[in-house]
């Protein structure tokens, strides 16, 4: 296990290096002089000179990368041009909002996707199986921002049951917090539920024909016991790992969902930063997202290897 862990961690070093180069390199895509772009139209030459010095734009590229990565290593992601606040503080402020939304979305995705996948596998080739497969296809093909708009139309505009937008922190009112988040969380969880349903279904189908399941049946165990105690426990291992990979889709989806429901989270932060040419914030958010994604996948790999010894080889 220690060797597996070391090998897995060693692979992370070049990946993290290339991620940092990629994100640093984004700034080089800016057409023309970055200082001119950052300063905006008709900026004072002294402002331009100040920006050039502040962001070390007068230094060679490798030196600039070195200075930037040194700052990142110390938790310094730069300063927001618009809000005049450290990017790190902005991210820490918005992170809990997106984390709560994503957490609720995962719960919804599991609550829908896993039972639907089990049912589809158990009733293989039946109307239920086809129905669940079609619903999953619908979930994958529906753009979540459109689903969000349709749900606002139904539950907020027509029925008046739920607020159309905004966010109430749980510390202020847990009930209002859940009321504001239930629709966005469903929208975000919907597509992931569809993917989870597909994974659970195929994993269950594979496991259901395994010898040990047949043995469990031959022993005279009931259908529910065979499915829950024998099949599901083994089928869920790949589902959990693939679920970690879906976190990328979750973070991407959060950007759009937060935009539709005007939730002041991570996604809204990056979109607002893009339109305000707040490049340090864009870079900071992308970097944090990448780190979070890498860490989640590392944990999933370790968890998988702990459960399944064959993978440690």
């Amino acid at each position, binding site marked *: 296990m220690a060797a597996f862990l070391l090998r897995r961690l060693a692979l992370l070093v*070049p*990946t993290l290096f290339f991620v940092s180069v990629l*994100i640093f390199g984004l700034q080089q895509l800016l057409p023309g002089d970055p200082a001119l772009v950052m300063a905006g139209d008709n900026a004072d030459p002294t402002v331009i000179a100040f920006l050039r010095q502040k962001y070390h734009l007068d230094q060679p590229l490798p030196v600039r990368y070195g200075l930037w990565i040194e700052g990142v290593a110390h938790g310094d992601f730069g300063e927001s041009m618009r809000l005049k606040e450290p990017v790190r503080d902005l991210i820490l402020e918005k992170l809990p909002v997106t984390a709560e939304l994503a957490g609720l979305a995962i719960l919804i995705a599991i609550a829908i996707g896993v039972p639907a996948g089990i049912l589809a596998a158990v009733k293989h080739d039946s109307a239920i199986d086809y129905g669940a497969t079609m619903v999953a296809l619908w979930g994958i093909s529906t*753009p979540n921002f*459109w689903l969000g708009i349709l749900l606002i139309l139904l539950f907020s505009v027509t029925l008046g049951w739920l607020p159309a937008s905004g966010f109430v922190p749980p510390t202020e009112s847990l009930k209002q917090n859940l009321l504001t988040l239930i629709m966005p969380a469903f929208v975000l969880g919907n597509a992931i539920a569809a993917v989870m349903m597909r994974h659970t279904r195929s994993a269950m189908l594979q496991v259901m024909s395994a010898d040990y399941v047949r043995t469990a049946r031959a022993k005279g165990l009931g259908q529910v016991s065979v499915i829950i105690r024998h099949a599901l426990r083994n089928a869920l291992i790949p589902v959990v790992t693939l679920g970690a990979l879906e976190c990328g889709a979750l973070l991407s989806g959060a950007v759009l969902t937060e935009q539709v429901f005007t939730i002041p989270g991570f996604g809204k932060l990056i979109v607002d*930063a893009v339109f305000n040419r707040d490049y340090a914030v*864009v870079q900071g958010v992308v970097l944090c997202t990448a780190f979070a994604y890498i860490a989640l996948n590392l944990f999933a790999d370790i968890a998988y290897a702990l459960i399944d010894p064959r993978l440690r080889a």
Partner: protein
Amino acid sequence: MTTETLDPPRDAPLIREDFGERPWQRTLRLLAERRLAVIGLGIVLFFLAVAILAPLISPYDPLATSWAAVRKPPSLLHPFGTDEIGRDVLARVIWGTRASLLAGLVSVSLALAAGVPIGLVSGYCGGVVDGTLMRMVDAMLAIPFLILAIALAAFLGPSLANAMIAIGVSQTPIFVRLTRGQVLAVKHEEYVEAARAVGNPHHRIVLRHILPNIIPPLLVQTTLAAATAIIAEASLSFLGLGQQPPDPSWGSMLNTAKNFISQAPWMALWPGLAIFLLVLSLNLFGDGLRDALDPRRG
């Protein structure tokens, strides 16, 4: 390559029929047997026709505003209604098909053009080259697809062309990974070894012997990637980073519609339905194609 070197027994007509069938004929037959895939392909072709014939079939100019027809609900005159400045929604949905299909086509072509050669080199060369390229791909895959596309579009500047580049670049690592995996799976096959043994140069082995044999999974991935690219273009346009107003795009139409949801819900219905239908059809076709190309399924 001929497949008719052996004569099947006379009393086995079914075997004879399968024997004479070329791989592409078999794929077409299996694809035609899958009703959902055929429906999917039909809808994709319908949207393609709409995009090509847009100037002929569009009832109005998609940019023409009319203050007398602001936010009118669907009627005989405007079957899909009108938007907040009196433009015909049907005309804009028809012209918006071009942006979506173009985004699907161009970005996937870019991803294929960059991803397949890198994947071929990585898989064939192995060693340090493979290791370095794979770590670069891991780095790109570590940034969620849409976030990377947003960041690229942000730094390149908002436009449909830049959105397509951003989506293409973001999809490249998927094709690199897939191609490399396929190359690793076939590079020690006997026919590749034979090609090497008779003294073929590396580029010829890769292009003439390996590439044609790894096309099926790439074809399936291309279809599914086109569906992803269309949603991504709509997402970027929805965020204001794709097609710029007043040019029509389904995503930007939904962005505007969001602000008039209680007064003019039809503005949100049709462009969303168009994205959903096109993406669903591509997914249905892609799933069918995967089944038809899988030699284990008959």
